[in-house]
């Protein structure tokens, strides 16, 4: 790898743009990096279209943000995989489907109707949906068609490097820069599927004081009264996904007195984050009163949690053993 700079492309899938902003969080390192690499494609920063990417013959590293939700994302990802030596799934959406994967609780048709017809702020007189040609001010445009389900990248192609987080934080970025430098200096391609985070859980690294026995009597939301900044969230009745979530983010939420919501994805030994969290959380509920409450009362107490999918799989439904709705379309 001599004089010529290596080529990096940043490709957006279904995402919010937060990942793009987080890349800028490299601060001075971004300058350092820009001396070593050529960013040949980054439509969020420069006006480029997919055709521009097509013209570039070979790319060293593709950083793909967002999940796969439209035909255009699918095409872009396949093209990126073909051209890239190293494909990086960047952010929770690319790695686990992200918050958009919760859309998989609904069918495509239901989502489109809600988004393009039913919401009070929508005006869609022509009743046009993505995928159809629309004429606006004499210009004919076509918004890419939605595919049936939201997917993380690895449901479609193989992924070399996972950079989790929503968005990936400084510590993950530092590791990504190391990967890039390693590639430039030694031509090293990381082992397929490497995750740029730690192997421990958030709880393992959390400095909060944990009692020997955590008992949850009543669930509290974060806005309901003061939260002790020194004490374990679960011990305060606040749902925190620390027990099943991979660490390596630097605990920004915990330090800001907010519970973990799981954007780093499942810890290595966890196969299905939501199910594992149920295993962990349910056992804490009324644990000291199991004998004095009846079975029915216990069940009732446990089922007080209003939205288990939304909370336990907030960023990771795409990683679930069951990752989409199983009801019949039009039902329920």
């Amino acid at each position: 790898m001599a004089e010529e700079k290596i080529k990096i492309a940043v490709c957006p899938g279904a995402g919010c743009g937060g990942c793009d902003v987080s890349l800028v969080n490299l601060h001075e390192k971004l300058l350092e990096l820009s001396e070593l690499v050529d960013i040949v494609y980054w439509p969020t920063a420069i006006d480029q279209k997919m055709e521009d990417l097509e013209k570039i013959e070979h790319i060293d590293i593709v950083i793909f943000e967002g999940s796969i939700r439209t035909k255009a994302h699918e095409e872009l990802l396949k093209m990126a995989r073909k051209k890239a030596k190293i494909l990086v799934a960047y952010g929770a959406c690319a790695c686990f489907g992200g918050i958009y994967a919760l859309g998989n609780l609904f069918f495509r048709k239901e989502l489109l109707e809600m988004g393009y017809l039913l919401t009070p702020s929508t005006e869609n007189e022509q009743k046009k949906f993505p995928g159809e040609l629309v004429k606006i001010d004499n210009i004919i445009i076509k918004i890419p068609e939605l595919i049936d389900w939201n997917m993380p990248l690895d449901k479609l192609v193989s992924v070399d490097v996972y950079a989790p987080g929503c968005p990936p934080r400084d510590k993950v970025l530092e590791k990504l820069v190391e990967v890039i430098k390693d590639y430039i200096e030694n031509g090293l391609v990381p082992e397929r599927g490497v995750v740029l985070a730690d192997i421990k859980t958030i709880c393992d690294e959390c400095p909060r004081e944990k009692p020997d026995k955590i008992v949850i009597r009543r669930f509290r939301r974060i806005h309901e009264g003061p939260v002790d900044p020194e004490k374990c969230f679960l011990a305060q009745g606040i749902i925190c996904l620390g027990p099943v979530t991979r660490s390596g983010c630097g605990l920004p939420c915990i330090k800001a007195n907010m519970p973990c919501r799981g954007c780093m994805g499942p810890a290595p030994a966890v196969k299905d984050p939501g199910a594992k969290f149920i295993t962990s959380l349910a056992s804490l509920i009324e644990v000291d009163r199991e004998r004095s409450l009846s079975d029915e009362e216990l069940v009732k107490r446990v089922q007080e949690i209003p939205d288990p999918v939304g909370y336990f799989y907030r960023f990771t439904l795409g990683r679930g053993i069951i990752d989409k709705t199983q009801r019949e379309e039009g039902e329920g």
Partner: protein
Amino acid sequence: MENDDFEPKIIGFLCKWCGYAGADLAGVSRLEYPPNIVTIQIPCTGRLDVQFVLEAFRKGADGVLIAGCHTPNDCHYFSGNFKALKRIALLKKLLEQLGINPKRVRIEWISATEGRKFAEVVKEFVEEIKRMGPLKLR
């Protein structure tokens, strides 16, 4: 549903001390029950990870039965059965959100002397799942 020839696949997670012993007694007593259940012995229902249940569904089970020791005082390990009870209660809520009939998971307390109850529960559960039809996961 017209599922006359549908034979459900049911996975049974049975605790070593009660559920499994109960199933054993049903066998030794030559009680008849449908052959749709495949039993897996676990040391205690408290060992049941909710992931196991989802994995069973993903691998083709139409129903999952969990059988352990009676509450409040029978658990060999003191409180494992309570853990299972609470986990399954929360799992049922999750399944409902995922569009799976929560009745596909059933938790029962069956002691080592209740061979008859085990046979009855399996019979009943198989009938119930037959009425629901097969679980086809996407």
